């Protein structure tokens, strides 16, 4: 990526941040409702795990602060994805199913650049980041984490990798909408719902078959549990630190392959009304 592309990337993020800011600030009551309801909903979504950990003084061999760290990490990953890939870029099948890719294709920039920037919603998407940071800071302070710069670097690498895996998983399934736009319009949200529902649980103690599945076919283990084991020092081998970034690379390649194939198909069929299970008009 050259200097010119980097500059354009920053300018695009800037303009999308401006649009998001304008959208959220058109009405103060609307802004407060959106922001706080999002934060409360996300806290409520992980409260079950927290209450279990509280009741049983830990969960799956993890202490309470470790569980809180896991919850905070999972929320942070969700918040990063929402912040950078909002506006239905994350739920790519909706865009494909609704025939909205045409709008992106008539913009004079590579498709990847459009998809990387169009969903940047730092105001509306970041409501989860605040409670996530709070949980992480409390757990980190209690567990004595984060004193070394190396740990923080590894934390950032793991979090970005986890976000990349969730995003790739959404794109991998979402690409089906190129072939069955109407039928698969909601497939990205269904795929992510599976990931998000299982994300706040320590998976230790699962059998090898289930564990293998949760780290491959449904890579929910990489979205919070596996990287947290490494960051909390529960992992046995330092190689465990490489697993999530490697998995992210693999899933990104797979998603990129599926999306490219789908796009080729789209060039042939377009958003035509003649497609079986075709696009909405």
């Amino acid at each position, binding site marked *: 990526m050259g200097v010119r592309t980097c500059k354009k990337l920053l300018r695009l993020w800037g303009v999308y941040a401006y649009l998001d800011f304008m959208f959220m600030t058109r009405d103060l009551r609307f802004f407060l409702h959106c922001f706080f309801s999002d934060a409360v909903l996300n806290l409520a979504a992980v409260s079950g795990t927290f209450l279990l950990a509280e009741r049983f003084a830990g969960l799956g061999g993890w202490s309470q602060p470790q569980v809180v760290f896991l919850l905070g990490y999972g929320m942070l990953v969700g918040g990063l994805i929402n912040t950078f890939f909002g506006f239905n870029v994350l739920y790519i099948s909706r865009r494909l199913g609704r025939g909205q890719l045409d709008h992106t294709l008539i913009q*004079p920039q590579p498709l990847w650049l459009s998809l990387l920037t169009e969903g940047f919603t730092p105001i509306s998407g970041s409501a989860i980041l605040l409670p996530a940071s709070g949980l992480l800071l409390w757990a980190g302070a209690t567990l004595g984490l984060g004193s070394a710069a190396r740990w923080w670097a590894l934390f950032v690498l793991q979090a970005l990798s986890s976000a990349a895996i969730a995003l790739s998983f959404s794109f991998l399934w979402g690409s089906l909408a190129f072939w069955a736009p109407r039928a698969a319009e909601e497939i990205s949200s269904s795929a992510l719902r599976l990931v998000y529902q299982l994300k706040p649980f320590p998976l230790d103690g699962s059998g090898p078959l289930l564990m293998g599945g949760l780290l491959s076919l449904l890579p929910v283990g990489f979205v919070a549990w596996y990287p947290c084991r490494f960051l909390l020092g529960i992992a046995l081998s330092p190689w465990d630190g490489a697993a999530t970034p490697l998995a992210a690379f693999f899933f990104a390649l797979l998603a990129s392959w599926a999306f490219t194939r789908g796009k080729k198909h789209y060039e042939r069929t377009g958003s*035509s009304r003649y497609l079986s299970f075709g696009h909405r008009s």
Partner: protein
Amino acid sequence: MNAPAPPGTSASDIAVDARGLCKCFYQRQRSEKLSEVFANLLRPRVRLVEALRQVDLQVRRGEIVAYAGPNGAGKSTTVKLLCGILAPDAGRVRVLGLDPIADRVRYVGRIGVVFGQRTELWWDHPVAASFEWKRVVWEIPRPRYERLLGRVRELLGLDEFFHSLTRELSLGQRMRADLGLALVHEPEILFLDEPTIGVDVLAKRHILEFIMQLNRERRVTVMLTSHDMDELEQLAGRIALIDRGRIAFDGDFDQLRRRFADRRRLRLQTRAGEAPVLQGAQLLGSEGGWHEYTFDAARTQIAGLLAQASARSEILDVETHRAPLDEVIADIYQQWRQ
């Protein structure tokens, strides 16, 4: 029939060069009979829809071309192919010397597109925000952008709603804003797919005048689809008619009238209340002593009709004019269907 490029036209004078374009879609067929539902599950019945069949189309730089045809004739498919949204099954497309699919990024920066049934404006934002977004995505230098924006705002009358939310605009306002947005990067060619659909007469006049001015001053090539034939005739010097995926006519509007019958109207005011019967003309109706006829001027001389009329009745007044183009086109579509 395709209008050949005039002698001496160089390759650089050609803005759109499409040759042998073919595009097919497959349409599933369902039976209402229960007995056929299960058979359909195993062996779905599929109908081949040939949206484009060997379409050849050349448009010169600075030309305004109307592209018309009945519903489902292949107009929007052609526009999508020319915009780089869709690839042809066979044939070759070059617009401004570029392949719309292979050179997409470079290409779309030089064209403007308006789909009348969609909007490129940001729905939940003021119109102004969409223009600012366009400036960044299209990388328009600030001074040039300010100059063009000022011009577009003035000519299309955007000021009155420039700071209103797109979702709150009327259809006419939205279309004007969409057109302005498509033009603010100074495209060399403009594809307009039904740009005045649902728009009132005044807003339509604004839009058409603006397109003509743009073409006159900056020689912007315009390719326009619409079902409003009067609008097309007002705007374009040339019309390409497509029917069932083939270009059925390509020429100017006078040629079109001559080729598909030079339909005229004759109105006679007679002293007697009853309309005289005229051979070679068809009576459309009578009202207040006026009788209106339609006839094909290529076959029937108007002098002969007047002679017939004056022999049968006392003529008080005469009016004659060409039939509206819509009527001519409706006849053509009817002929094609038959």
